[in-house]
């Protein structure tokens, strides 16, 4: 029987992160994936919020992951009357130029190339990867997990198993570590992928996501709160159209999803003017896929409190029910939890103690993670269903604003500020990594293409008109900042530590400041056209820069 220190189940978004860290620490690590090519059974491919990259694994932040398009805002459409095409628009989440789209609040990506990129990094770090291998059972001895059994009948022993098998958690449920989730916390997403010329996507969407919200009787989207409205995500040369719906309603009834989804899709594509007129003529259906995810698990205290560890095993990402109620940001949660799991695994293996009581520090750290906690417990999106109940347009607008608009910052700022301060306290140099990440990702978006036959496209860079002086200034600026931070590290750390208690006032402060910020943004839109040439020059400058200017300051990434 083969023996490893760590066996990681699943090479989705979380698995490779945990595996890489364990291998780097010198542990023999095996990662098992049931699909033939990593990522081809993962269906989400939408927006990964910026904080996933900022506070997530260093190799992703400092590397060049395959990104399809940066995102600078959400345009929320509230549909009053689908026949008349009466649509309200609230684009309050847009970031004004010249910061956009370089300063993105998220990045759209397809899963397959992204997970494959992560897995490649793990393999480069010494992880052994086996694809086309389904784990069918956890091996147990005296109630302790000691390895896995594969579909080929092979038994593989491990000192510790990290389970990143995704939302259904068949292995964890089968081994009695946690229960199967009830259908009312699970949402099924029906995703249509359309090809569209890049110029058309640029013209219609720019860098914004489009969400539509409507009433039950319009039959255009799942009843609010039991799923989302319609969400449309732009990629480089394609768009995703996603409708999703919980598997059971509040009264426990299971809706006829096949009928409903067909009806919603038909009504939306034929009745919604911007889809019918702007998108339909330029889009070609390329794929239709569907998958479910555990969207409201975090709101149920009992489910949330289920252990995500047992003797010899740690569950990460979706397998640990960490998908978010607020923004579907399961990817950041998978990354954060995988990072924590690897840290705890390394401590446990070094201490020679993989007992549940030692591993319980994993659950404690996941519970103490400000962003994971905020993202799985914030009820603002779930609350949308009350607008449906009362049929109040005012409520609908408020909930959409708070859940999917600028208002969301009044609920998430404390978590964000806390994470920023914690990260700086651990390593002040992270500030320059953050500052370089945004232009580097933007630069990559401009030049990197991902052919979907497995490889990464050759970048086509034009350095013929590089503004050399400006680049030298920029490079010197970054260097100066590196040195200043290196010198002032103790001071910066101390300041971040002192400020930490203040972080919890960020939400109330945001509530007070939001009306002002929104007024400012409205005002800015009037100024923007005048500043557009300057904006364009700045964006153009980053686009023509020597990529070395934005390279990660320290080694790592790729």
């Amino acid at each position, binding site marked *: 029987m083969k023996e490893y220190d760590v066996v990681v189940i699943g090479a989705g978004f979380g698995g490779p992160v945990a595996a890489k860290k364990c291998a780097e620490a010198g542990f023999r690590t095996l990662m098992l994936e049931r699909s033939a090519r990593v990522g081809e059974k993962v269906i989400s491919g939408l927006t990964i919020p910026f904080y996933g990259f900022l506070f997530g694994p260093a190799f992703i932040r400092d590397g060049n992951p395959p990104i399809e398009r940066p995102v600078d805002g959400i345009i929320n459409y509230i549909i009053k009357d689908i026949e008349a095409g009466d649509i309200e628009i609230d684009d309050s989440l847009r970031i004004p130029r010249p910061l956009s789209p370089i300063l993105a609040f998220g990045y759209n990506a397809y899963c397959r190339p992204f997970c494959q990129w992560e897995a490649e990094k793990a393999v480069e770090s010494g992880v052994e990867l086996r694809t086309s291998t389904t784990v069918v059972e956890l091996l147990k001895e005296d109630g302790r997990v000691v390895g896995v059994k594969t579909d080929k009948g092979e038994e593989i022993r491990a000192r510790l198993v990290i389970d990143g098998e995704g939302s259904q958690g068949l292995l964890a449920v089968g081994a009695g570590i946690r229960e199967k989730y009830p259908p009312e916390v699970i949402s099924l997403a029906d995703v249509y992928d359309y090809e569209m010329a890049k110029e058309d996507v640029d013209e219609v969407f720019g860098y914004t996501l489009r969400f539509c919200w409507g009433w039950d009787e319009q039959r255009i989207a799942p009843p609010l709160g039991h799923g989302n409205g319609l969400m449309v995500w732009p990629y480089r040369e394609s768009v995703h159209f996603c409708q999703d719906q919980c598997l059971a309603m509040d009264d426990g009834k299971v809706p006829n999803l096949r009928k409903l989804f067909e009806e919603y899709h038909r009504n939306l594509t034929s009745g919604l003017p911007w889809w019918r007129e702007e998108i339909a003529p330029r889009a070609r259906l390329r*794929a239709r*896929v569907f998958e479910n995810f555990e969207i409201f698990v975090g709101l149920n205290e009992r489910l949330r409190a289920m252990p995500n560890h047992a003797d010899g095993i740690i569950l990460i990402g979706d397998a640990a029910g960490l998908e978010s109620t607020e923004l579907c940001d399961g990817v950041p949660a998978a990354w954060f939890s995988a990072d924590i799991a690897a840290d705890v695994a390394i401590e446990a293996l070094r201490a020679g103690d993989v007992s549940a009581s030692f591993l319980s520090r994993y659950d404690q750290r996941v519970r103490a993670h400000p962003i994971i906690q905020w993202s799985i417990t914030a009820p603002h999106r779930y609350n949308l269903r009350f607008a449906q109940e009362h049929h109040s347009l005012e409520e609908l607008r408020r909930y959409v604003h708070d859940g999917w608009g600028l208002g969301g910052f009044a609920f998430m700022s404390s978590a964000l500020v806390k994470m920023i301060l914690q990260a700086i306290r651990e390593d002040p140099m992270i500030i320059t990594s953050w500052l370089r990440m945004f232009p580097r990702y933007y630069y990559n978006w401009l030049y990197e293409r991902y052919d979907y036959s497995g490889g990464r496209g050759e970048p086509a860079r034009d350095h013929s008109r590089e503004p050399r002086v400006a680049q030298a200034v920029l490079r010197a600026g970054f260097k100066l900042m590196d040195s200043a931070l290196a010198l002032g590290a103790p001071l910066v750390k101390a300041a971040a530590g002192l400020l930490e208690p203040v972080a919890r006032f960020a939400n109330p402060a945001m509530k007070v400041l939001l009306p002002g910020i929104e007024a400012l943004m409205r005002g800015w839109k009037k100024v923007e056209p005048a500043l557009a040439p300057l904006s364009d020059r700045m964006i153009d400058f980053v686009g023509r820069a020597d990529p070395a200017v934005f390279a990660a300051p320290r080694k790592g990434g790729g």
Partner: protein
Amino acid sequence: MTRTYEEFPGVEWVEGAGQFIRVIEERCSGCANCVKVCLADCYEISGKKARIRDLDRCMECASCWYVCPEDAIAFSWPPGGTGFRTDWG
């Protein structure tokens, strides 16, 4: 060998998946929840029991497993490298 279907473009099914989902007939109450949620039309009701018509277009979403109130659906993943695959999720 791989298969494709018109209603689900962009997806390939690699053969060899076998009967990875089964209905445990004694437990099934015929409530049809599984029929209602399956977008791939894999189920039908016959003789007041759910029956798997075929799993050819199954996207392995597990919705049927979640909504069965009687725990009458035995659900597992198909063998490694088989079943659905897509580049577009």
